[in-house]
């Protein structure tokens, strides 16, 4: 424990909801003697240990890698997705970002397309279905090719990589006043549109992913920028412009379906 480590006491107002059909309400908990070196999720683990020892139901929250790269964790802390620190997932948010006596309100992502499973866990499978609609590339199997045989400009590679850093956590949807999944979908569309490997499905990708996004009940973009400001990976709004371009191209210059026959 470093010399800078402090112990702080917090009050948590946590959204408790038994299941998707339950109404849910806030319940207050005390988090005592929290090390400022602990992560936010470690702090919740300690609170849960105490709840379990008392025979209470622990607070349910999503988490997996706890190193900011898997996209599993995420909830609202005082109305901010992943909490107050920029470019940080809640698992990488540390308690030194808070001070003694803070009262924190924890809520799950709220969107019609994200039904609440329990407490702070929201069902984000709508995003998986958007990916299934077009967020993939065709890859032939066979002998492995040399990784450097496909040339990609440095700029395209960098832009594609920036878009590819999206971990699909859903903070953009949670932060958007319209619960739009534009930033998420756009990151996937841009990422693949910029790379040679993504060209085969390019003409249909934006169209299919946007259709799925709409079907899931996400809202439209009103360019408020809340999504990008809340994104733990700083995905830029520029990706939404790229997706809109791709979408228009796909719709306006739709290729005729070639009749390949098949009959005799």
């Amino acid at each position, binding site marked *: 424990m470093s010399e800078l480590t402090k112990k702080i006491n917090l009050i948590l107002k946590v959204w408790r909801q038994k299941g998707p059909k339950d109404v849910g309400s806030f319940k207050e908990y005390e988090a005592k003697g929290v090390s400022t070196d602990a992560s936010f999720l470690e702090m919740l683990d300690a609170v849960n240990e105490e709840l379990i020892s008392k025979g209470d139901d622990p607070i349910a929250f999503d988490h997996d890698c706890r190193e900011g790269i898997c996209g599993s964790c995420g909830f609202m802390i005082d*109305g901010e997705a992943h909490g107050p620190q920029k470019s940080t997932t809640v698992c990488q948010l540390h308690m030194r970002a808070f001070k003694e006596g803070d009262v924190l309100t924890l809520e799950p992502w709220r969107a*019609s397309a994200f039904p609440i499973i329990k407490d702070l866990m929201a069902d984000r499978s709508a995003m998986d279905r958007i990916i299934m609609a077009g967020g993939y590339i065709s890859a032939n199997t066979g002998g492995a090719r040399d990784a450097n045989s496909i040339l990609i400009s440095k700029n395209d590679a960098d832009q594609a990589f920036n878009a590819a850093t999206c971990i699909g956590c859903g903070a953009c949807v949670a932060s958007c006043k*319209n*619960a739009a999944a534009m930033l998420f979908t756009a990151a996937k569309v841009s990422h693949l549109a910029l790379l040679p490997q993504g060209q085969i499905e390019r003409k249909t990708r934006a169209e299919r992913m946007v259709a799925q996004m709409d079907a899931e009940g996400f809202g439209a973009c*009103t360019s408020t920028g809340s999504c990008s400001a809340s994104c733990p990976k700083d995905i830029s709004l520029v990706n939404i412009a790229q997706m809109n371009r791709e979408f228009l191209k796909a719709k*306006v210059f739709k290729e005729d379906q070639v009749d390949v026959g098949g009959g005799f």
Partner: protein
Amino acid sequence: MSLSLPHGFLTSTIGKKYLMGLAGAVWAGFVLSHMAGNLLMFISADAYNSYGHALTSGNIIYAIELILVGTLISHVFLAISLTRQNRAARTSGYAVSPRGEKVARFGSKTMGVQGSIVLVFIISHLITFKYGTYYETTVNGVVMRDLYRLMVEVFQQPGYVFWYLVCLVLLGVHLSHGVGSVFQSFGLMNGRYQPIFRKLSLAYAVIVALGFIAQPIYIYFVASLG
């Protein structure tokens, strides 16, 4: 390859945004030209009336009016449709509001309210002027409508001046978010242009709003004295 708008464009969120942006862009262009044309009132009453006469004498005005009414109606209906969709997507809010750049700016958050008031304004403005009292004047031997006289009459009433001020400020706020967002909706935004478009949008809004506002203010405080 066929050039068409296939099924699904008009019903998609992005397709609606394209059309709403297009209709908004037509009106953004119109308000700028309307404002610029009206500045002729600062030159002379005759110049102002002659401009109005020239605009309304040909048949082209009907085509322009048709485009303006059509785009306005589609802009409003698309806005209603998208707002309903957006509200359905987020039925419950959060107990605590976010801060800083994570919160939608006032201008972007209240587009619907601003737009609704501006719509009421457009209709009342048409009733006041286009369908208002018909005075006649003669400029260089041509008999034409004396809109200048009507305008001076209207803007001598403080209530009208105040209502115009409020609505024109709202129009400016609406444009400041709208003009920049058109570039985003059309997919023309990229990293290099983003800050330029935002500034351009603000400048556009300020020029249009101030240009318009100068007119009732001038009439109320200066021209009406003479």
